[in-house]
């Protein structure tokens, strides 16, 4: 390989990768496409990308199982590009003093009958309807769930009601599909949860993600010690954070990379004891099995 090619390859490897929002959105869409995110359950709402103004974009993957929690319209999104047509609601003022905007994007699996095979999900219509709050505060739909929940969706009932708020939905878009879908959507929406909670939780989650994403990239590059430094920072700031399990799994991988097998092993034992049913355990076990002669 010529030196020029080598240096350009090296430079290309330093390029920024996908954002955590890309990662989460694609997974959510994939969940619908694969039928992992079932209709009939409010599955997850992912809050991300807190901006300087404190804006939180919440992407809610929600569905109504008969009793409606549905915020807006409608439709299982399939390819992510189609998500782009989902409307990001303009800023809704929720804060005191400062403007805390919460742009809510909700896409909802239409009906239990759409309970979905992958093909049904793919064919389902993605559409957006702008939820306009009738009064100033709180026009949020689904409780934001930690990423881990979006990751491993399970059927579950609608989010608990804290402050039901009725919002009026105003069909807006833009897309040939959305009008048809909007016409099927329930006109009124009961929204549950307190906006401030959503913003707070979303902000914390985004902050956690912001710490873990670079660590994940460092792991991918084989930089175990770089990743460890970040992961320790996450541990100090969010010891019991929503992404604590992911942090632990990554820490074990980082320890393996740095050759610290003993700590990797003991950390894995602690993990197993603390989270006996963790979805991440198979990955941790695989990491250990691949590098250690004996299991923890």
């Amino acid at each position, binding site marked *: 390989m*010529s030196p020029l090619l080598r240096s350009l*390859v090296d430079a290309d*490897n330093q390029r920024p990768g996908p954002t955590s929002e890309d990662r989460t959105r694609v997974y959510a869409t994939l969940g619908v496409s694969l039928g992992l995110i079932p209709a009939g359950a409010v599955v997850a709402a992912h809050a991300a990308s807190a901006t300087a103004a404190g804006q939180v974009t919440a992407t809610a993957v929600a569905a109504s199982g008969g009793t409606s929690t549905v915020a807006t319209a409608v439709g299982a999104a399939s390819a*992510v590009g189609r998500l782009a047509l989902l409307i990001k609601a303009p800023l809704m003022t929720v804060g005191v003093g400062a403007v805390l905007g919460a742009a809510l994007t909700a896409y909802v699996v239409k009906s239990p009958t759409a309970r979905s095979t992958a093909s049904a999900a793919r064919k389902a219509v993605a559409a957006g309807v702008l939820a306009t709050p009738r009064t100033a505060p709180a026009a949020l739909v689904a409780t934001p769930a930690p990423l881990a929940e979006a990751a491993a969706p399970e059927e579950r009932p609608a989010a608990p009601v804290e402050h039901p708020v009725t919002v009026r939905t105003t069909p807006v878009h833009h897309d040939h599909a959305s009008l048809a879908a909007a016409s099927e959507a329930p006109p009124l929406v009961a929204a549950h949860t307190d906006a401030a909670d959503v913003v707070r939780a979303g902000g914390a989650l985004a902050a956690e993600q912001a710490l873990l994403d670079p660590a994940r990239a460092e792991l991918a590059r084989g930089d175990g010690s770089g990743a460890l430094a970040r992961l320790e920072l996450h541990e100090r700031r969010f010891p019991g954070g929503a992404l604590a399990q992911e942090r632990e799994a990554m820490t074990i*991988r980082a320890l393996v990379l740095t050759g610290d097998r003993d700590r990797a092993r003991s950390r894995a034992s602690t993990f197993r004891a603390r989270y006996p049913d963790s979805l*991440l355990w198979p990955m941790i076990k695989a990491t250990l099995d691949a590098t250690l002669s004996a299991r923890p």
Partner: protein
Amino acid sequence: MPNNREEVGSRPDAPGASVSEGREAFRAIYDREFDYVWHSLRRLGIPARDLPDVTHDVFLKLHKSLPTYDATRPFRPWLFGVLFRVASDHQHLGRNAREILDDMPIDVRDMSAGPEQRAGESEEWRIVDRALEAMDLPHRVVLVMHDFSGHSAHDVARELSIPLKTVYSRLRTARARFVLTAHQVQLRGGAA
């Protein structure tokens, strides 16, 4: 090599796992390979605006193809084969769209570049893009898979179903073209 190294524990769990274990395993693969798929697709020429869509399609395809994965083979080259087939389909379908775009004003076309790629885009990244764009897909894929992703020529040959000697000859040609274009772009100040 960044973005590329095959990590420990990178093979999916053995088949026969329960549904939930399968889901966990898939999630683990998704987490681990997302960046790799994304960067590989970008290097194969998928425009930034289409990366989420095509990445989605790759994992969808991967989900369907996992049962056929032979665990004695290294995972990433196999994954590259999967993503290459998805990318080829996409590029085949996208060709007409690009021809239409060619008739559009520059500022319209430029919208295809993602903001993250235009904002802190380094000169080297621009050169890489131009040099890869100057290549046809059969050469490009070999160069990307071998030199950028660091897979062996044997893995390239097997996963792309081409003879080993074809891999080597394409690699030679692709490297020469890449370097030639890179020099040209450098001489023109990256404006090529």
